[in-house]
């Protein structure tokens, strides 16, 4: 810094700089080391094929390379069973970690067991940005990019500009992190943050649990962002401790004078329960505008909202009640750990008694491959992150996205209602 002027760094600039071995700023293109690489059963077989094609069947960091069988788990047909075996064989050949059927959704497993503050994670799944809530730089890429990352332990990156999302104030009753992130996406649009990093900060974020923070960073990509990030703090430390890896904690914070492309201030107390209506995530509407919409299927789960607190909220809404006779209810815990804890707390019992079909940990019906494909003209309200036409396996169906409270309330009412009426 010969100019004598210190340029403050964003979280992305700090982490990428550390991994590139030099100071970097937004806009720079660098080759950077990666700590964790991951693929799933939809993208992994192609990654393996690419590596076999160029004879690079090896992993630079086998202990931090994970192949997840989660999107179609257990397998619904033989093509996918064979695809799964491509991953199993690659794990045998290279010594990388295989996350089997029943262990859970990749992003949930990554935050529970593999990613720590300050890491770079690249994953062949667009919601890889979820891990950013730990103060890691995590981003989704395609099969070939991640394949090369697995083999060489590095990747090329353009250092993103950052939008700082500064959230203050307390949520009203019935409003959750999911409503906040849907509100933000509705505000900036599905391509409003393309190529950017989103840093979530402010007192509301500081007061959030890790689970709530994961809901925010998970959906950063739905605004086009490269990643979502939260500074690591005492909440992060406690979370890592619960996961049995407190020693992996490290504070990762942005400089006070970091340069942001845009600062967006949000008053959390002014947000109402919202829903993304078909067929784009940024088609965000107030619950009032949609109340009365009949619902055929409710799905509670996924990397966005399939964690313990989400199942707790759903169980509290459904306790002692029954699903509406015309409305199916599917619940999928995001991971084995979540599933076990939800059993211990009695949430699973409550949900099953209320009429839920509980699926094995994994993606469930989120990506339209199995476990709840919609019929023509059917309507689903889901706690997932996407409602694109055809997402749940049928282009002639309609998907609404909401918080677990709103979804659970719809399961009882058989139609969209304001969750505040039942909480």
């Amino acid at each position, binding site marked *: 810094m010969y100019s004598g002027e210190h340029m403050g760094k964003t979280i992305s600039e700090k982490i990428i700089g550390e991994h590139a071995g030099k100071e970097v700023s937004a806009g720079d*293109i660098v*080759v950077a080391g990666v700590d964790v690489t991951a693929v799933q059963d*939809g*993208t992994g*077989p*192609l990654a393996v094929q*690419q590596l076999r*094609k*160029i*004879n*690079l069947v090896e992993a630079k960091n086998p202990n931090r390379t994970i192949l997840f069988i989660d*999107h*179609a788990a257990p397998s*619904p*047909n033989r*093509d*996918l069973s*064979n*695809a799964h075996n*491509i991953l199993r064989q690659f794990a045998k050949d290279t010594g990388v970690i295989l996350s089997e059927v029943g262990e859970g959704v990749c992003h949930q497993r990554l935050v529970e067991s593999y990613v720590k503050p300050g890491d770079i994670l690249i*994953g*062949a*799944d*667009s919601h*890889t940005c979820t891990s950013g809530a730990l103060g890691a730089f995590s981003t*989704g*890429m*395609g*099969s*070939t*990019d991640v*394949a*090369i990352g697995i*083999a*060489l332990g*590095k990747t*090329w990156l*353009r250092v993103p500009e950052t939008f700082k999302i500064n959230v203050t104030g307390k949520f009203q009753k019935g409003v959750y992190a999911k409503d906040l992130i849907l509100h933000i996406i509705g505000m900036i649009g*599905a*391509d409003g943050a*393309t*190529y950017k990093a989103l840093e979530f900060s402010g007192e509301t974020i500081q007061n959030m649990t890790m689970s709530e923070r994961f809901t925010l960073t998970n959906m950063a*990509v739905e605004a*086009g962002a*490269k990643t979502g990030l939260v500074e690591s703090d005492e909440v992060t430390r406690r979370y890592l401790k619960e996961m049995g890896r407190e020693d992996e904690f490290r504070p990762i914070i942005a400089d006070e004078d970091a340069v942001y492309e845009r600062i967006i201030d949000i008053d959390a107390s002014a947000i109402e329960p919202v829903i993304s209506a078909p067929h*784009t995530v940024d088609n965000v509407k107030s619950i009032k505008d949609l109340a009365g919409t009949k619902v055929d299927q409710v799905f509670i789960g996924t990397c966005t909202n399939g964690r313990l607190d989400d199942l707790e909220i759903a169980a509290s809404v459904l306790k002692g009640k029954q699903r509406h006779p015309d409305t199916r209810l599917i619940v999928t815990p995001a991971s084995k750990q979540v599933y076990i804890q939800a059993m211990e707390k009695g949430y699973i019992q409550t949900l099953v008694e209320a009429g839920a079909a509980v699926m094995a940990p994994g993606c469930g019906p989120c*990506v*339209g*491959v199995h476990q709840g*494909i919609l019929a023509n003209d059917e309507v689903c309200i889901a706690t997932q992150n*996407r409602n*694109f*036409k*055809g*997402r*749940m*396996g*049928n*282009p002639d169906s309609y998907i609404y996205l909401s918080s677990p409270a709103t979804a659970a309330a719809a399961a009882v009412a058989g139609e969209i209602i304001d969750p505040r009426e039942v909480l």
Partner: protein
Amino acid sequence: MKEPINGKAWKFGDDISTDLIAPGRYFHLRTNLPELAKHVLEDADPEFPSNVNPGDFVVAGRNFGLGSSREHAPTIIKLAGVNAVLAKSFARIFYRNAINVGLPVLICDTDKVDEGDELEVDLSAGIIKDITKGIEITFNPLPDVMIRILNDGGLASHIEKHGDFKLED
């Protein structure tokens, strides 16, 4: 790069997601790309997969390829014989994947192009001619890094050739 390429425009709107390009209900075909390619973009235009001709162009609005990271999406567009995708903007992962699999993706103003227009694209000159309309449209050149990867035939070939990333001289 290569000679100018000619073909017909297939016009699509904004926000064409990877779920529309490579639908999740064909998840099981992901290890059988030629089969998967028979369904490319069918939820956006049912005519497309059976009537697209080698050399045609996909011409779209904003945010083409948003959604999942499935590299199968640009791969099957390429397998269907499409020469290049022209759009006002692309989602980040799709853009990167397209280059990695060797599918040119061009950012330009697509408003004036209509379905069925005859196009000629000169990748190295950065010019698109709409022969039907008699107009020229320019596009932003790709970043240098991406030109290198594209010229090597995609990322896997780039690494095979150089043994590592070789993004500058």
